[in-house]
């Protein structure tokens, strides 16, 4: 058996009653819950500690109008993208119902999917809760639910544990609990110690455990999405309001972006001490990587006396790091600089960046346009993900299929 496509990036949207139904009695009133937004007639999450609602917008959109093979309808469907004013009943049911989800990904020719939390929905609020016990309970509720979701079709869903940012011990304990429940990868919302800014020596206990458990460690784009108290309308100038709000809360948003996290992880020697650690940047795209690695290496070579690690940054990247993209023409063209084995395709379904139900078509087409061989396309569209998440496939069938392509 081989696959057609494995999405390395999909999302749930937490159902509205998830936390109220499952939190311990003492926390029920204080956890995340859903309200109506009066002006935009949409839904939003509110919770203790957040003064502004996290509105449903980019994090949960859909285009039902686009049809496979009909690109005009796809471009037309972009008009449906909303940054606010989205309601739960507008969403795909597969956002929370695994049976519906299995059908939805089948419609997009996807065999299996790595599934992450809803990012911009509840997670800023949960991480920033003052009451760490309440915060931890929310992470646990979510992970329990993900284990149930995955159990519906473990051959098709690879569900992420979202690890608590409440401290190193909590993070380690929760990782072990999630592995015992059968979850197959973990997502960091902060460095393992709980810091949103810097790795620390103490984190080594976590990296060691991840290696021991053979758990791939994901960072999904960045530690903070623009939502809740960190939200604002995006303009041509970017999101300056968001930065100012974050600064007032003592958060450096730039420090939580994947390229900066990767820089700090490499400089801290994490990959030198844990050479088999699997570290994944999901929805980080590709086109920036060749120049980033070129300059990172150059800065090390130019300041060699200040660099105490035996390998170059690009060498750690190529050995330890994988990156996931949605659509990326530049990255597909520069795949040899990034590493064909370091790239995984993941269309971000059902978020607004997804092109369902033509994600598979677009993904394939971009690689073909860049001149990728059938074997390279297999690697990027599913095989790297199958290897990463240990999904079974028949290597002999793969050779036969590729040979078939060449004879065609």
């Amino acid at each position, binding site marked *: 058996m081989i696959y057609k496509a494995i999405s390395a990036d999909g999302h749930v949207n937490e159902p509205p009653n998830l936390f109220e139904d499952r939190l311990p009695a003492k926390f029920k009133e204080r956890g995340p819950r859903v309200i109506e937004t009066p002006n935009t007639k949409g839904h939003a999450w509110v919770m203790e500690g957040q003064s502004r609602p996290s509105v449903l917008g980019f994090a949960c959109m859909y285009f039902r109008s686009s049809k496979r093979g009909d690109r005009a309808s796809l471009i037309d469907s972009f008009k449906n993208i909303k940054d606010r004013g989205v309601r739960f009943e507008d969403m795909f049911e597969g956002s929370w119902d695994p049976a519906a989800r299995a059908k939805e990904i089948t419609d997009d020719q996807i065999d299996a999917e790595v599934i992450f939390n809803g990012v911009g929905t509840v997670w800023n609020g949960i991480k920033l809760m003052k009451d760490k016990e309440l915060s931890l309970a929310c992470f646990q509720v979510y992970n329990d639910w993900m284990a149930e979701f995955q159990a519906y079709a473990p051959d098709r869903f690879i569900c992420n544990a979202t690890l608590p940012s409440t401290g190193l011990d909590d993070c380690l304990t929760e990782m072990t609990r999630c592995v015992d429940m059968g979850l197959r990868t973990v997502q960091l919302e902060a460095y393992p110690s709980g810091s949103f800014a810097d790795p620390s020596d103490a984190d080594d206990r976590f990296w060691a455990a991840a290696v021991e458990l053979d758990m791939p460690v994901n960072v999904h784009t960045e530690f903070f999405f623009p939502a809740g108290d960190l939200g604002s309308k995006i303009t041509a100038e970017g999101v300056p309001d968001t930065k100012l709000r974050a600064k007032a809360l003592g958060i450096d948003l730039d420090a939580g972006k994947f390229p900066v996290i990767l820089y700090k992880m490499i400089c801290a020697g994490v990959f030198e001490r844990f050479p088999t650690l699997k570290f994944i940047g999901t929805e980080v795209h590709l086109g920036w990587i*060749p120049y980033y690695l070129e300059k990172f290496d150059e800065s090390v070579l130019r300041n060699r006396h200040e660099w105490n690690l035996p390998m170059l940054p690009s060498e750690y990247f190529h050995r330890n790091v994988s990156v996931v993209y949605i659509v990326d023409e530049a990255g597909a063209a520069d795949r040899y600089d990034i590493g064909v084995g370091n790239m995984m395709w993941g269309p971000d379904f059902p978020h607004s960046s997804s092109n369902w139900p033509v994600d598979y078509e677009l993904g394939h087409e*971009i690689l073909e346009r860049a001149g990728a061989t059938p074997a390279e396309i297999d690697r990027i569209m599913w095989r790297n993900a199958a290897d990463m998440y240990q999904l079974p496939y028949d290597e002999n069938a793969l050779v036969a299929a590729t040979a078939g392509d060449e004879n065609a």
Partner: protein
Amino acid sequence: MLDMTGYSLISADSHVIEPPDLFSARLPTKLRDRAPRLATASGTCRWSVGSESAPLPDSVVNGSGWRRPPHGPRSFEDVLPALYDPSQRLLAQDADGVAAEVLYPFPGLWDAIRATGDHELILGCVRAYNDWIAEFSAHSPHRLVGLGRIPMTGLDDARDELLRCVKDLGLRGIILDAWPGLGPAPGRGDDGFWEVVNETQVPVSIHYTLGGSSRSTPVAGIAPGLRPPMADAALPLVAAGIFDRFPNVRFVLAHGDAGWATHWLEFTDINYVRHRHLAQYQLQNADLLPSEYLRRHFWFTIHQDRSAVKNRHKLGRSHLLWSSHFPLDGADWPDDRRQAIRLTEELPAEERGGILGENVARLYRLPGFEDGFAGAAEEPMARLVYF
């Protein structure tokens, strides 16, 4: 074709170091007690102005960021004379196989001057520098291409100094540190400034950052190889309709390479195509994508940037300008030529000639290239986004 005997290699981003008497000799008398001063304290040679200070970089001693000297200049006598003496500069260019250089000042000094917030002093210093760099360039106008600074003291000062730089001092380009009217974003209020830029067609440089300083953390964080902060100034210019109203306005994003820009351009287009109905910003020409505005009106200086060279067809072959960065950062005087050759060794001769000299000669209309890009073959823009 490039005249290989005249301009085989031009650096689009090199630096001078301001001589110690520049301000004390040229500022109006009433400002002289506030003038920036160069002095050595605890073994370090540094500029001081008000409560601000800026140490000279170590590499001004030998012009190389790769073979850095054991310590920086202990006094101004340790600074390479080529950094402030025009006849010495020509010898340094000869030693490096460089035919001409576009000259920027020492950024740290100007961050310090700006940080004083003393508008009278800032304006005086800018005018003194512009007079000095004009004299420096006049020593050999086809090899020393000094750029004028625009003061950060308000629209009228900016416009007046722009006119003075171009019409009176004969400078071929200018450097912008803030929006001319000092607003947070480019708006219609600055049109009086862009009108003059449009009419004189003088390239406008942003050197690494606009509105920040070289001492502030880059917006993308501290990691190397990310988008330089000056890129954040580009899309607001497009969104403000500057290029629709003033089609001859051209920008140079200096000292920041271009390898990052392929991704930036692609994702700027993707975001626009998907989100334009959310009206984050609008384009007046509905037939163009934002990257097409950007690629038409922006040039990039590149140093050790193989990624940009490789993706030159996406960025625009005529929009990449090699630079040595002499004497800062990764400059490697007197071996910059070797690096330039290595960087471009796989290119066809014509494209190599463009990136190493002809593009910058056309942009600044250097002798022999007075017509600029008129008459040069215009290449079609590569498509960056497919849906």
